[in-house]
């Protein structure tokens, strides 16, 4: 694993020296709950996520924590989610309607004049299972080992992870170090396109056979893989009886297929009119690093959670994330917790909203707005109560908006009056119940 910049190294060392996180500095309150199964606690949640005119997703989570005595716990997590709707392809809007071939090569769809091209082929169902075992290793040490499995139609992710935490200063400080390794494989419908291969159209071929032959020739392979190796160092510190702080440093190195087989870039002429669409190509390695700082305060009956993350990587994608949640007690056993989040990122160095005709092809390019320059914010609130028997019930409603920005590219005439960096707006509704 490499640290790309000396500035990063000094920050990393400073963090790592004392750092090494974990929530173990404070033993959680095992307040009384009427358990469904003796020794087990369950948390469940249902989430609806809906973007205006784009992706809709529903997700269900059930997690269980079993107490095996002597501070030994088994954690199990089951996630099911389903996704439908349309996703931006990376192609630019045009003054006229555009037709695109579906990623599978079979069939096409048309985008109206002036509209952002969205591929509505997406729907997928995913199942995820996580399991971990935690136990004391000696008087001041705790260890955790875990595994991860996630499967959807065209994607499989398998992972293992481990963590060791040590308490110091009469359990006022906890240092921890964790590591994770995952192996993902992708097997998309229609295969994986070769770098910068043009999108083909059935109408340009005399026969179905000729088209299929050309389509197959434009594919590099049927499936590909990526591996991710991570290290996470953390420190948790009790500052005073009403203030807890955590600082994490993490480094994650991904190798393998990191492109998106469904994303394209438009090649436009001097006037901004699309001549063809080329499949994107990203580098085959990425090292991400982050610093994460979280504070929990108890302020006269309310609980404030403030966190900040700075992330940087060797694609030059840097981001800042600030998050605040503040829980206030209401009458009875009710509470309300407003939430605000702000996110801003710079574009990856190979991000381009489009390619220009006649210019030599770069080694890497992507028009995926998710690695472009962007600001995003979330606002919302959660309202909940503690029911008889200690069961929690809560409802959370949030609004999320992404504002992609032009990173400073001069637009040809035809593109000047079109929306190339349109906002994405989404609503999230979540219901949670613990038992």
């Amino acid at each position, binding site marked *: 694993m490499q640290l790309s910049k000396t500035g990063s190294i000094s920050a990393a060392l400073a963090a790592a020296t004392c750092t090494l996180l974990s929530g173990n500095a404070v033993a959680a309150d095992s307040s009384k709950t009427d358990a469904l199964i003796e020794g087990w606690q369950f948390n469940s949640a249902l989430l609806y996520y809906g973007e205006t005119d784009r992706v809709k997703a529903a997700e269900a989570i059930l997690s269980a924590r079993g107490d095996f005595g002597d501070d030994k716990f088994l954690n199990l*997590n089951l996630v099911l989610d389903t996704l439908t709707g349309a996703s931006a392809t990376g192609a630019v809007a045009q003054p006229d309607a555009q037709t695109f071939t579906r990623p599978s090569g079979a069939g096409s769809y048309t985008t109206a004049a002036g509209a952002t091209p969205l591929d509505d082929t997406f729907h997928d169902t995913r199942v995820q299972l996580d399991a971990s075992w935690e136990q004391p290793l000696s008087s001041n040490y705790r260890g955790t080992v875990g595994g991860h499995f996630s499967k*959807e139609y065209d994607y499989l992710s398998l992972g293992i992870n481990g963590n060791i935490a040590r308490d110091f200063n009469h359990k006022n400080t906890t240092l921890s170090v964790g590591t994770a390794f995952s192996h993902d494989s992708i097997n998309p419908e229609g295969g994986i396109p070769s770098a910068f291969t043009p999108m083909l159209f059935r109408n340009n071929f005399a026969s179905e056979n000729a088209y299929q032959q050309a389509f197959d020739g434009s594919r590099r392979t049927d499936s590909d893989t990526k591996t991710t*190796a991570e290290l996470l160092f953390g420190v948790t510190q009790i500052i005073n009886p009403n203030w807890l702080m955590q600082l994490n440093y993490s480094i994650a190195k991904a190798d393998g297929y990191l492109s998106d087989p469904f994303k394209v870039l438009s090649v436009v002429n001097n006037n901004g009119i699309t001549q063809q669409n080329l499949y994107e190509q990203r580098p085959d390695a990425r090292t991400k690093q982050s610093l994460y700082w979280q504070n929990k305060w108890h302020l006269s009956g309310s*609980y404030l959670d403030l966190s900040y993350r700075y992330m940087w990587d060797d694609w030059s994608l840097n981001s800042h994330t600030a998050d605040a949640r503040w829980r206030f007690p209401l009458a009875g056993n009710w509470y309300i917790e407003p939430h605000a989040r702000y*996110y801003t990122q710079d574009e990856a160095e190979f991000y381009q909203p489009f390619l220009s005709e006649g210019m030599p092809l770069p080694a890497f390019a992507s028009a995926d707005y998710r690695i472009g320059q962007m600001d995003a914010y979330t606002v919302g609130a959660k309202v909940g109560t503690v029911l008889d028997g200690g069961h929690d019930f809560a409802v959370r409603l949030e609004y999320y908006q992404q504002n992609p920005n032009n990173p400073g590219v001069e637009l040809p005439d035809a593109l000047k009056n079109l929306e190339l960096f349109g906002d994405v707006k989404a609503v999230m509704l979540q219901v949670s119940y613990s038992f």
Partner: protein
Amino acid sequence: MSIKINNKIKILITALALSQLAACASLDNVKPWQRGTLAKKEMQLNSAGLDNALDDHIYFSKEGSSGGRSFAGGGCGCN
């Protein structure tokens, strides 16, 4: 926001990390009997574990960053 201000931010973060280092060395003043509030569920760092898991999944699939609170990689084809 321009990222040409990166070096300033890194200095700030280093200072932050150093201040936390100093905190580690000197803070040993919260006794077990003073931890009633800290032991509450609301004061746990991951007190809303499912909310965090759902949020991390959404933002992982919609933004160019991931991780920080916990591991960043692998997971799903949503990104």
